[in-house]
């Protein structure tokens, strides 16, 4: 595939992520902060998000497996996940977190478990998609091209 095609593919892919709600304008903000001094900024922030999220999802799973669930603790983890997803523009993850927090407040175990499943799912989707997008970007850069905004 030639450079122009790759670039076009990237733009289409990225646009679809916004349309489908995977990403929101906060992601655009991050891209705008990237410059020659820090050309990997977005990848670095997103990688931090991946690490953070995986840790939080594990904590959530453990917390919800307890005999006596500490909803405050669960809520604290969800709050963190909501915050970091919002900071990188991972909109669908953020939305599930909002619902999740409501269930925590109600101390609704079923609801929380359902949300945990949903948030894992949304997280894994956005992770896959972002990784694909980064790969495309890398291909473009390797071909000597620049990333279209």
């Amino acid at each position, binding site marked *: 595939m030639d450079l122009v095609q790759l670039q076009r593919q990237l733009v289409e892919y990225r646009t679809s992520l916004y349309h489908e709600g995977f990403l929101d304008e906060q992601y655009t903000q991050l891209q705008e902060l990237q410059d020659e001094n820090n050309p990997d900024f977005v990848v670095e922030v997103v990688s931090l998000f991946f690490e953070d999220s995986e840790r939080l999802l594990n904590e959530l799973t453990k917390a919800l497996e307890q005999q006596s669930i500490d909803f405050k603790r669960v809520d604290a983890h969800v709050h963190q996940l909501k915050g970091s997803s919002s900071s990188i*523009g991972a909109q669908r993850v953020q939305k599930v977190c909002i619902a999740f927090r409501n269930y925590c407040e109600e101390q609704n175990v079923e609801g929380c478990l359902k949300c945990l499943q949903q948030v894992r799912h949304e997280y894994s989707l956005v992770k896959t998609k972002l990784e694909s997008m980064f790969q495309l970007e890398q291909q473009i850069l390797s071909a000597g091209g620049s990333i279209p905004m």
Partner: protein
Amino acid sequence: MEAAAAADVLPSGSSQELHVLAVDDSYVDRKVIEKLLKISSCKVTAVESGARALQFLGLDGEKGSLGFDGLKVNLIMTDYSMPGMTGYELLKKIKRSSAFREIPVVIMSSENILTRIDSCLEEGAEEFLVKPVKLSDVRRLMKDCVMRGETEGNNAGRRVDKRKFEDDNHTSSLSSSSSLTPSPPSTTAPFGGDVATSELVSSSPPHSSKRAKLHDGD
């Protein structure tokens, strides 16, 4: 995209960069705020807790507002919800210290809760930013801080300007006994010294929606 550098608004001849102390327990947010500030030509020290922030400032016993590398802190930006010491608690400690109370403190929070905003502003927070923080928020802060710094010499620390409150006496005239009461809404300036509180407590002060930077697109 042009970065609005703090240097752009400083008078010519001044080469001073603002030094911002950023406090946030989230790795992701620390990284983002650091970038936002660097792009705005600030020096940044990012720490993960209120305790660390106090340590850096030397408020845990040591010297003045000189950090480890001798740089004066010009602005503190702190997250509200942090384990251990919240941003609000940190704000209070800073505003109650004679050495640091003049340093502007900005609170950042993902939750847009009116009572929270009010308490922070009452305790002397410069602004309450709703997360995620954007470059436009930081640019605006740079201008506000620099303008404030410029007039400080002439004006005995009184804030000029761009203030959203007409009454800006709240920090000096709020005694500790009235710390639970909200400042009167901007329409009742000048501050007459009598805080008629009960009828004000339940009203939604119009100022908070201006002070809390919501995403109304700018």
